[in-house]
């Protein structure tokens, strides 16, 4: 071994290099306050290693970016851990950068002859922030997509070159493949390359001028190895432990639903350490954003870079330290304001809840037997009744109807309830309520409609109220029979079990007791029917046809009460009507269910 090492030393001089590195003098001996630079180098090394491995599985295009990150997070061995490590180490770096900056400014390590080293440090700070800005978009999820759109829109307000600059960064007129290829190249190539170059310069300059000891010195000088190395290692260990805590606690990094430019995202926020800028922007009315987004941050940065010169004056150092504290306090205050405002904003909280719902749902769909189509995972959500049903309902139906008392999305619509509550529509319970004298003209059914005192209520209120026990049993089997027409997923088992009752109910529909066919038609064509067809009542075909045109003779005809013909009037597309119908019928893909998605 030794001859080989000597041979190598003769050619490379590595022994001297190592000796210089390890036995660098630490004036006043090892101290904890000198660890920040080393922890940052350590974090950067983690980022390079984890980033390279992530790169092996990442695919930068609008149809594959989210999908590959999903695959890393949910399918690959330990992928969530790798992603989490990368994500939380990035957060740790930001914190450590601030700590390092504080130590340098407070200890006066920026003063001559270390100006250039200080500036390379400030540059490194900016480059690391640029890394996190570019990395935020790469998963191509809703959060990253919308936050990055804000960031690049801010670029566009740069005087003169703004719009061109934005177009260059985005790689075109709109967000897409080139945005991702460019952000990836910046994130994994240009910026890290620059960081490595500046770290080398930074450390070289640091070695050239030596460490700035904090006075008074605690003990005599000591070499870097092993005392300071041990301090640094323990500090790195603490950083890693903190990172691992978050990685395990949150099972890797968050991944929102895939980016969808047609799906507004009220929960869009930048990373927490950019929240102060986000908040600052709120105070600058339209047309003056430049001052908040560029001028003020630029001014602060200019003062930071001027610190070595300011520090030469008598009170300069005090000013610098005071300025730093004031700046940090301002950042902290703005961050707190941003967080606090969000915490009390019901719209934001609802948006976050919806985002979490979508994020969970898309993973369920991606793991379904059909997998992710080549059009990307965003199609999964767009074609999913569970996702789109409530949205369409809230936007189109909830002005009159209710779903479980609300608008389907968990909100409460304004205004009075004007039509039935459709939760469980066509189920046995729902029909039993409709045929309950106490409920038929109540708000859940016809209470808000013009049918309040119409034939149905006229039948249910006096007649059903006076039913004998036997007649009530007959009515119940009719309910079971009509509900079976819907073929609801949730009633598959009871419908199969109650075949005999269904048979009986079908026969009873036209008896003198129940006499549905006085107004409704049921499997036998009836030109004189005045009320909705009970043939296939609540089935997908029935519901789609109903929503398409409720005033069709098959349904309410000219008696229709206010309900728009969503399909006939082209208010909703056929696809949207299908989604609402599927959702109302509780028919969407669920893991573990035997049958696939309804197409």
């Amino acid at each position, binding site marked *: 071994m030794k001859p080989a090492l000597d041979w190598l030393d003769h050619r490379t001089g590595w022994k001297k290099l190592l000796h*210089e590195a390890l*036995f660098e*003098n630490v*004036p006043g001996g090892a101290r904890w306050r000198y660890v920040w630079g080393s922890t940052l180098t*350590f974090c950067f*090394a*983690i980022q390079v*290693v*984890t980033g*390279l*491995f*992530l790169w*092996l*599985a990442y695919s930068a295009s609008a149809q*594959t970016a989210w*999908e*590959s990150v*999903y*695959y*890393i997070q949910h*399918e*690959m*061995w*330990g*992928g969530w*851990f*790798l992603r989490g*490590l990368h994500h939380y180490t990035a957060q740790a770096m930001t914190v450590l950068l601030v700590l390092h900056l504080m130590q340098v400014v407070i200890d006066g390590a920026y003063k001559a002859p270390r100006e250039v080293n200080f500036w390379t440090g400030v540059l490194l700070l900016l480059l690391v922030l640029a890394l996190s800005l570019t990395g935020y978009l790469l998963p191509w999820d809703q959060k990253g997509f919308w936050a990055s759109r804000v960031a690049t829109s801010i670029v566009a307000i740069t005087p003169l070159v703004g719009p061109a600059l934005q177009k260059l960064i985005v790689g075109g007129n709109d967000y897409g493949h080139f945005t991702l290829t460019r952000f990836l190249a910046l994130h994994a190539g240009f910026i890290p390359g620059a960081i490595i170059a500046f770290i080398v310069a930074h450390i070289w300059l640091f*070695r*050239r*001028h*030596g460490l700035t000891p904090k006075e008074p010195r605690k003990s005599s*000088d*000591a*070499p870097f*190895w*092993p*005392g300071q*190395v*041990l301090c640094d*290692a*323990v500090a*790195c*260990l603490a950083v*890693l432990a903190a990172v*691992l805590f978050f990685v395990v606690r949150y099972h890797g990094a968050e991944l929102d639903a895939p980016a969808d430019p047609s799906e507004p995202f009220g929960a869009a926020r930048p990373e927490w350490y950019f929240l102060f800028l986000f908040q600052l922007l709120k105070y600058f009315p339209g047309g003056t954003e430049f001052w908040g987004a560029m001028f003020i941050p630029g001014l602060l940065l200019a003062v930071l870079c001027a610190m070595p010169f300011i520090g030469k004056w008598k009170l300069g150092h005090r000013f610098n330290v005071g300025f730093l504290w004031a700046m940090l306090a301002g950042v902290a205050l703005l961050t707190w304001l941003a967080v606090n405002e969000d915490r009390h904003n019901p719209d934001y909280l609802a948006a976050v809840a919806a985002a979490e719902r979508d994020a969970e749902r898309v993973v369920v769909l*991606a793991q379904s037997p*059909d*997998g*992710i*189509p*080549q059009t990307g*995972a965003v199609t999964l959500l767009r074609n999913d009744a569970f996702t789109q049903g409530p949205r369409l309902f809230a936007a189109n139906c909830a002005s009159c109807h209710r779903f479980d008392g609300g608008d389907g999305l968990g909100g409460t619509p304004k205004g009075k309830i004007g039509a039935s509550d459709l939760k469980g529509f066509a189920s046995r319970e729902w029909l039993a309520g409709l045929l309950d004298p106490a409920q038929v003209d109540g708000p859940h059914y016809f209470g808000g409609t013009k049918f309040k005192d119409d034939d149905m209520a006229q039948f249910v209120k006096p007649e059903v109220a006076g039913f004998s026990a036997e007649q009530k049993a007959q009515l119940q089997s009719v309910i079971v029979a009509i509900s079976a027409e819907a073929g609801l997923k949730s009633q598959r088992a009871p419908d199969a079990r109650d075949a005999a009752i269904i048979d009986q109910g079908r026969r009873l529909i036209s008896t003198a007791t129940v006499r549905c066919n006085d107004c409704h038609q049921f499997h036998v064509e009836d030109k004189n029917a005045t009320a909705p067809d009970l043939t296939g009542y609540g089935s997908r075909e029935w519901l789609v046809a109903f929503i398409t045109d409720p005033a069709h003779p098959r349904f309410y005809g000219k008696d229709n009460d206010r309900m728009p013909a969503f399909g006939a009037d082209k208010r909703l597309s056929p696809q949207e009507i299908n989604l609402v119908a599927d959702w109302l019928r509780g028919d969407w893909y669920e893991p573990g269910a035997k049958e696939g998605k309804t197409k």
Partner: protein
Amino acid sequence: MAHPPTVPPPPDRRDFLAQAAAVVIGGALALVAPAAGLFVLFDPLRRKAEGGGAVWVASLAALPESGEPRQFPVLATHVDAWNRTPNVRVGAVFLQRLADGGVRAFNASCPHAGCFVGFRADKNCYLCPCHNSTFELDGQVKDRTSPAPRGLDDLPVEIRPGGEIWVRFQNFRPGEKERVPV
């Protein structure tokens, strides 16, 4: 370099504990990120190829009566990491009518290194355009000097009612004497 004037003496034995601790902690720190990465790197090793089910390839009527082989694409569900695409071309086979009324199927992939072989009607044999392996109509290596280690890979064929030809499509590892499914 402008070093400070006092170069401290090298550490003595009392530093041993500190040295050992620094080495141990440093080693542990260096391990975490690469270890996490290696798991992801090796993930493909645990993924088995899907397929091997019979798929419809062509109808009997499409095969020349003369017994000359013809190439057909194979449509199946293609799984590519996160994407699952039904009904896309996943490979190709040569189908040949046999004298006994049966049908023979070869995977069109060359067993040498995986190029697609072609049928040369003039020489009445299969020829690989990459390194010139030749194969007989029955799939055996024709020219002894061919670099292919084995004959063409035949695939189980089923003729279903209506003259439908169904093939159990599979890929095999190229370059090996024995057939090993991928």
